[in-house]
């Protein structure tokens, strides 16, 4: 039997060619036990999936606290917005989780196979890890052009994807689902970004942004038109209907505009859906012991004499090495000692320099009093609560490990060199009877540690996003108690500069997790935050350093003001009207 059955009453029906294999078994008298037959029927009945009454993916999404508003958002996108939506929740509410739920649901139901996630280059790995760990969806980060044909699920930076080399490959593909993170980068329809995303053939589309509108309504128009052309008419029609002459910021009829946006956008607000307990930031001032002081000053002097003279490009290895050294000497003498030894043996440095580095190393090894360690022990002794202690450097970690053992604290260790199982074990131990969780940055990602509410920054990371990530470990949805963030800072070190910028200028410790990115995103400097910091710190004259610090501080302040302006503009325009609950 090979000839297909041709439908007679319902012309669209396509009969599976595999039916003939089964029919041939029947024809040939091949018989199985009735148990297998029933099991087959049951299996099929169990795997029927219809409609969007509920999210089937919920039980599957492990280790992830899901909020009612996120579930409602996902359902609304699937049921009412038919899989095309701008997810514009305020920062910190988990737009990624909403997008993940929607993607998972569509995949489970067999509606989506080919998925593309477009994100800023710095977030590709993070997205991949989250999709894997939280949703069990394996993604590949695009590497070479062949990947487009090879994989069904890809994460790619917008910049890579839109480059001619890649975009020519994307043109021929129809994606079932495209997710664009940081979609405010598509606010201008004359840019390549917008045109590129517009050019992709796709069924479902999710645009994620915390700031769907920053400066004027044309941005909003562009975003909506990308998602659903015609929803707001043409730009000409939109202008006529909503813009008063000369004002591109506020529409003539807010209610009407919100009504149209309601069909394409969801914006949940923190106040409506969750409230985090307050958090308190404490700055603990450290005064170095004489040995530590001498080491810090001499290392700094050496770096100041070297760093500014190194060419930005050619000698970047050494520049990086010196930057790390400067960071480490602020963390602990152990961290500095390890790097000093490595550098003193490096061919990259001249004989004289190696001599000098070697001398500094001896100085580091001979430091006998560690003020920060003492302070930590004193601090831990004050509380019964569990405490997270973060440092960036393994030698510091191992020093603290010894110290805490010696002082009789039960603690668990966590660092990037551990395998997954050991890491799990370590978190379990902290959840259990360990009082202290001693971790390098690697302890940041993905794990829920919000059963603890106290955190110590043993050293201050120079990258403020790192600092924010640390805070985010405990001050996040699920936290029920007030959080205490204690940051050690040492007088007459670069720590003073860091606090000047982060604490004084942008109120880093008061920001909601996620906001920092939106602020720093508008600072126009090609250098990273830590490069700027290092450039300032390594200047020779005190006055010059001050001046430069003031200038950069001013820039941060402006960025913060810009962000506040965007926030209040957005608030006035959108309000609560686009939230899944609590909207009026």
């Amino acid at each position, binding site marked *: 039997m090979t000839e297909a*059955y041709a439908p*007679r*009453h*319902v012309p*669209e*029906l*396509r*009969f*599976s060619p*595999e*039916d003939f294999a*089964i*029919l041939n*078994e*029947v*024809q040939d*008298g091949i*018989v*199985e036990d*009735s*148990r*297998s*037959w*029933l*099991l*087959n*029927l*049951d*299996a*099929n*009945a*169990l*795997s*029927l*999936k*219809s*409609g969007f009454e509920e999210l*089937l*993916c*919920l*039980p*599957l999404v*492990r280790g992830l606290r899901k909020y009612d508003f996120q579930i409602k958002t996902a359902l609304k996108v699937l049921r009412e917005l*038919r*899989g095309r939506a701008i997810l514009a929740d305020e920062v910190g509410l988990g737009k990624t989780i909403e997008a993940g739920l929607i993607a998972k649901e569509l995949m*489970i139901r*067999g509606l989506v196979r080919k998925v593309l996630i477009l994100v800023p280059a710095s977030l590709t790995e993070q997205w991949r890890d989250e999709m894997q760990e939280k949703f*069990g969806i394996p993604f590949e980060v695009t590497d070479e052009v062949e990947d487009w044909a090879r994989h069904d699920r890809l994460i790619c930076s917008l910049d890579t994807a839109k480059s001619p080399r890649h975009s020519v490959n994307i043109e021929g593909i129809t994606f079932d689902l495209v997710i664009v993170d940081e979609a405010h980068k598509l606010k201008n329809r004359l840019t390549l970004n917008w045109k590129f995303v*517009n*050019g992709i*053939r*796709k*069924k479902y589309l999710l645009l994620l942004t915390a700031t769907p509108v920053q400066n004027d309504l044309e941005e909003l128009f562009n975003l909506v038109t990308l998602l*659903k*052309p*015609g929803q707001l*008419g*043409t730009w*000409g029609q939109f202008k006529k209907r909503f813009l008063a002459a000369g004002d591109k910021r506020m529409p003539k009829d807010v209610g009407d505009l919100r009504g149209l946006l309601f069909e394409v956008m969801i914006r949940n607000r923190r106040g409506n859906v969750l409230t985090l307990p307050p958090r308190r930031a404490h700055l603990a001032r450290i005064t170095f012991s004489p040995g530590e002081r001498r080491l810090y000053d001499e290392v700094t002097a050496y770096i100041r004499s070297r760093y500014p003279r190194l060419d930005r490009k050619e000698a970047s290895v050494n520049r990086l090495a010196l930057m790390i050294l400067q960071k480490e000497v602020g963390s602990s003498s152990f961290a500095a000692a390890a790097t000093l030894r490595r550098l003193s043996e490096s061919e990259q440095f001249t004989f004289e320099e190696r001599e000098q580095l070697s001398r500094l190393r001896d100085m580091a090894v001979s430091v006998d009093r560690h003020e920060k360690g003492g302070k930590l022990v004193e601090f831990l002794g004050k509380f019964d609560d569990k405490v997270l202690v973060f440092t960036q450097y393994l030698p510091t970690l191992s020093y603290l490990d010894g110290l805490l053992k010696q002082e009789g604290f039960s603690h668990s260790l966590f660092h990037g060199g551990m395998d997954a199982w050991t890491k*799990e074990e370590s978190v379990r131990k902290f959840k259990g009877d360990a009082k202290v969780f001693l971790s390098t940055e690697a302890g940041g990602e993905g794990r829920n540690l919000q059963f603890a509410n106290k955190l110590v920054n043993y050293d201050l990371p120079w990258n403020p996003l790192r600092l924010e990530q640390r805070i985010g470990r405990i001050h996040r949805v699920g936290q029920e108690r007030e959080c205490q963030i204690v940051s050690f800072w040492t007088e007459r070190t670069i720590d003073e500069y860091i606090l000047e910028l982060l604490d004084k200028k942008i109120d880093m410790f008061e920001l909601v997790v996620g906001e920092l990115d939106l602020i720093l995103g508008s600072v126009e400097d090609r250098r990273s935050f830590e490069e700027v910091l290092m450039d300032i710190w390594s200047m020779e004259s005190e006055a010059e350093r001050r001046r430069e610090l003031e200038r950069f501080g001013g820039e941060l302040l402006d960025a913060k003001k810009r962000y506040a302006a965007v926030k209040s503009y957005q608030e006035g325009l959108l309000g609560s009207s686009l939230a899944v609950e609590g909207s009026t």
Partner: protein
Amino acid sequence: MPGVVRYEIPPERRAALNAAVLRVTFDPALAEKYDGVELLTPGSLLLDRIIEDASSRGHHCVAIVQAGDESSEREVLAANLSFRNATPEVSSSKRDLVPYMLFTFRITLITDEKTELLETVVLNCDSLREHQVRDMFFEEALALPEEPLTGKRDIRPVYVAACEEMEKRIGAVVADCRESARGRLTEEEQRIKDYFAGLAREAQVSKYPEQAKAAIEAYSAEERKRLEEAQLKYSLDARVRLVGVRTIMVPTVKMAVLLTGRKKGREIELQYDEVSLEIPPPRCDACGTEMKELGLCDEGHLVCGECERKCAVCDRVSCQACAENLRVSDKCAQCGRLLCELHAVRDDFGLGVYCPDHTTECPSCGKKASGSFVARCGRCNQRYCFLCVAAKEKSCGTCRSLTGVSADNADVARVKSQSAFAGKFGKWKAARNRKFTIVEGRAMLAKRTFVLDMEGQLVWEG
């Protein structure tokens, strides 16, 4: 651990499931709590694998159904069917095992959302008739047939019949799905078309002709893409997959039933399975619908009540399957009763067909008249065709042609012998037509009309 089941996988399935022992739970909280406990829930990898494994086999099994309580054929017949115009008699019967096949189909309908269902069809492989799906057909413990199912029959027609039946059942669901998606598509397409039409208009107004032309071309290319996207998203993808088949041998009684009617008799084959004791209702010879009440026409056709026609005059029964000239196919234009050819009277004035009761053969001219073409004579009070009753005088032709007769005329004598009023009249007139003899008696101040029929009986006077 409560709520967690340890499940040892039979060796032959280990490869498919990629494990030898599984610890499974249906509770997401437990799956999260314990390492290595697999969650079984729609969409979970393990369940997907189990489903895949389970549906890679179990495609076909067989069973035999045991007969229930004994019942006589007559009782079963009476319980299932009733008869019009005929008396049934079971003339012979035999028991047999008849193969039935149970087909389960999985139907998947995808637009921008998904609808899935299972549909089960049971067919009698001999008659290809659909059989009610009974719970017992799904019982695991049904006995196996003693001897292997030999006698290869071609199952293709059975499969085709099952597919057709399944199609009929899901037609409405598919249409629903298609239409609701089409509604959303139309809306979306309209929005896209309006948008690009708007862009084109704006380009024409605001740009130089050359630029406008280029812009409009670009817009229409983009419009095509957006429309394609929309069609892709909302178009219906409807798939059917056969999940499995069960061949069920059902003990069946096949019997010949002789129906005796008014004229021709008829023998029909009926069968029922001994489990349900239900006789699949036979189909009407004329229209093909199934019927529980069977009629027999004079030609021996088996017909339903809808198709049966009975003459109101002579009780003759015909049906749509009878030869045309044998059909009871006319209706009286006045009373609406059905009439056979013999009893359908076509009037002579072209009004239509009438039953004998509503037809008058004019006593005067002999034409057949009906309805408004019948008139009553004002003098003799008999019914004539309206042509024979002169409008002015309101009297029929016979009455107008009355001629004098002597008092000892035979008809006058008949009148006198039957009417008490006849004695006082001295002058007499008479005339006759095809049915009556009209006699009129006159005196000084009185006149009376008497009507005699052909036998000389007085039928009316006045």
